[in-house]
């Protein structure tokens, strides 16, 4: 729907193309808005600009080579993708992962959640005009990237997991550094809250914007913080515990009104819960091997399974079918949380103003690498 170009501005509907190249669409997302003045009358989300065909690629790669490709889907939380994939294959081959590896996986997932939420907070606040929070959030994210760089040598695409456990043990002193990071994070969270949570302008820009009820959120397939923001207490870490989450004590933050402000509060509380989990996991880190009994040439028996984990964006599910003979999965399917959360965008922005569309894209927190795969 290319915008029709009238010579002069007339007051009926105009079509505005937000994206695919736009400062606040967090990647190559195109939202075609039909506006009546400032109000959004209708919208259509156009995606697919970053489609690399990862699912098809994985169906032509070995089981171990696929870990690399899962890094590149949600590039903001790469370790979570790796954990999700490895656990699905371990479930297929019913491999028992040693306790130390499960603890380390939990720590990595929670560190990745904090890093992803830092990026969300920074860009979300920047879109609504609070520039300083962006710099603060990225300063903390740098600390996490350093931790990951020390562990697996990379800052973005970690390749940090292997089927059956971890490729290498954590360097000495790494756990001390993680604890140090947790202390810093607690003080910095107070800074974020001071800047935003009780800020009148922030309240005015986020309260009552993009309200969605619990039933509607479940029906349209929202998951993760957007779903919990509407009051649905569903967190896969609690409902279907994986890695070492069954041994961790933490609460699942839930909002009430289901507006942008509640989603913001849910994610800010998730920061704290993640720090709490990391502390418990580091203190209780058991000794022992870091990989289970894994055959040298990985060939899962014929069969298929669906395994979901709680990524920072929502329910990240892997549906993998093996045919028992070839060294590549027969069917490799990813249920990306950003894709399903983005589906709710037209419903959320209906009737709002252009400025709210920007706030809502930030509030739904999508990563286009995961949406387009």
């Amino acid at each position: 729907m290319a915008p029709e170009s009238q010579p002069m501005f007339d007051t009926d509907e105009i079509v505005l193309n937000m994206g695919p190249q736009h400062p606040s669409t967090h990647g190559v997302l195109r939202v075609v808005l039909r506006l009546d003045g400032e109000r959004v009358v209708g919208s259509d989300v156009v995606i697919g600009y970053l489609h690399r065909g990862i699912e098809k690629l994985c169906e032509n790669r070995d089981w171990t080579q696929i870990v690399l490709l899962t890094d590149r889907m949600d590039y903001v939380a790469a370790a979570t993708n790796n954990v999700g994939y490895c656990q699905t294959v371990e479930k297929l081959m019913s491999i028992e992962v040693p306790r130390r590896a499960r603890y380390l996986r939990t720590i990595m997932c929670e560190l990745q959640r904090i890093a992803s939420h830092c990026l969300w907070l920074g860009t979300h606040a920047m879109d609504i005009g609070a520039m300083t929070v962006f710099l603060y959030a990225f300063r903390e994210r740098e600390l996490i990237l350093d931790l990951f760089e020390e562990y697996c040598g990379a800052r973005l695409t970690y390749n940090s997991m292997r089927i059956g456990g971890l490729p290498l043990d954590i360097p000495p002193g790494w756990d001390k550094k993680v604890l140090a990071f947790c202390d810093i994070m607690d003080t910095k969270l107070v800074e974020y809250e001071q800047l935003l949570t009780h800020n009148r302008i922030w309240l005015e820009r986020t309260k009552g914007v993009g309200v969605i009820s619990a039933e509607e959120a479940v029906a349209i397939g929202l998951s993760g913080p957007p779903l919990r923001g509407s009051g649905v207490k569903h967190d896969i870490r609690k409902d279907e515990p994986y890695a070492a989450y069954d041994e961790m004590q933490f609460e699942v933050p839930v909002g009430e009104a289901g507006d942008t402000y509640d989603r913001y509060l849910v994610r800010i509380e998730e920061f704290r819960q993640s720090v709490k989990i990391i502390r418990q996991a580091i203190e209780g880190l058991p000794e022992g091997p870091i990989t289970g009994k894994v055959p040298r040439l990985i060939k899962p028996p014929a069969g298929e399974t669906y395994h979901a984990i709680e990524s920072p964006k929502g329910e990240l599910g892997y549906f993998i079918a093996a045919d028992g003979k070839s060294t590549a999965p027969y069917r490799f399917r990813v249920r990306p949380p950003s894709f399903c959360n983005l589906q709710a965008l037209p419903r959320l922005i209906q009737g709002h103003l252009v400025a709210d569309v920007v706030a809502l894209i930030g509030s739904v927190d999508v990563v286009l690498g995961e949406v387009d795969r």
Partner: protein
Amino acid sequence: MTSGLITFYAVGALIVVFALLVVTSRNTVHSILYLVADFLAVALLYATMNSMFVATIQILVYAGGIVVLYLFVVMLVKQKSESELASDPRRRNVIGGILVAAVLGELVVLGVSNAISPAAPSVNAPGGVENVAMALFTDYLIPFEVVSILLLVAMVGAIILARREI
């Protein structure tokens, strides 16, 4: 005295030129810009007669307020392209011509009858703040109140007409 006279005529000429430009310019926005320039020239005229209060009010009310709304209207309303304007049948009617001739005639008569003598710029300028204030609130109080009520009615009417649930 002669320097006062020269400036008066210069500014006067400026006003007339701008007024003509307003009427003759093809593009509507250009004509509005000339209108703004015209009002500023009139304000300049008041300034040369050193009644600064009236000059600043002229800028504030006319140039800063009313013409901005003209510009709003012009920008929002769909423009006729230049070609349509030229061939618009209604422009070439006779009555328009007669009216213009009549007005011009009156001006000439007025100009000739009382010898051209520019109002001498007096020191205690009639346009000073105190004089205007005193006049406004003593001799012309009733018309002032009537005009303010009229404006109020106009505002309320405008709001009712543009009744979109704001």
